């Protein structure tokens, strides 16, 4: 059927509930790339201007990378993903608050500054989505380890 070639063949149903997690992996991969390149540039070109902010950028990039890999591994990476995403949520809340309260310590933007306002607040929404997907996955399959 030419229609299938053009518009795409009907999809396999796939394992239930895994789709949202797959989209989440894509989002995390984009943020690992964005935060990673930002941190790399900042650390390489002007580390002494704002060491705290730039080290936090690097930390954010590592957290996104770990979360991306852990989410992509599915159930096997579940515990690592939970830890990474929790760190991420705490990070975005703490850094977001500090960047507003003590702007002098953050002369340059990080991914988490102002709760991620430079990134359309996606950094604030992402960990909430991530935790909800992970916690729902557990209640779906309680017997599986």
């Amino acid at each position, binding site marked *: 059927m030419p229609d299938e070639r053009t*518009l*795409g063949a*009907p999809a396999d149903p796939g394992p239930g509930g895994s*789709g949202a997690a797959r989209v989440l992996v*894509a989002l995390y991969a*984009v943020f690992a790339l*964005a935060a990673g390149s930002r941190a790399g*540039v900042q650390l390489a070109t002007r580390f002494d201007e704002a060491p705290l902010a730039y080290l936090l950028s690097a930390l954010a990039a590592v957290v996104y990378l770990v979360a991306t890999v852990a989410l992509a591994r599915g159930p096997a990476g579940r515990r690592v993903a939970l830890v990474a995403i929790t760190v991420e949520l705490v990070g975005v809340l703490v850094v977001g608050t500090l960047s507003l309260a003590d702007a002098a310590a953050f002369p340059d933007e990080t991914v988490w500054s102002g709760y991620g306002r430079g990134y359309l607040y996606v950094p604030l929404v992402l960990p909430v989505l991530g935790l909800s997907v992970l916690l729902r996955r557990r209640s779906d399959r309680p017997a599986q380890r």
Partner: protein
Amino acid sequence: MILALVVAATVVAALLVVAGLASTLARRRIGLVHLALAGVLEAVLLVQAALALAGMDGDTPADAPTFLGYLSGVVLIPVAGVLWARSEVTRWAGSVLAVAGASVGVMVWRLLELWEATGA
């Protein structure tokens, strides 16, 4: 950086987002429509990148490392999105491309901003 190409990339990226979400809603894998849109998007990005590289000098853009970081990232995203979406057999293949399209749509404007920023 040429504004017309930024707008063109944004329009194609938006179409890719719509096509990707539509195939997820229709419970389909991706088809030639998605591949064509991603191909056009990649072509626009490559032309833009070539013109930007040719037009760089000491003052433009002011923050050259960041600009080059974004530029190399943005041309890789449609390729990575297509490779992943083609191997995805569930209806979420289109959503993966939609994420890629949305990322490109945001990044080209950030690139333009970096290009136009003058050095302090």
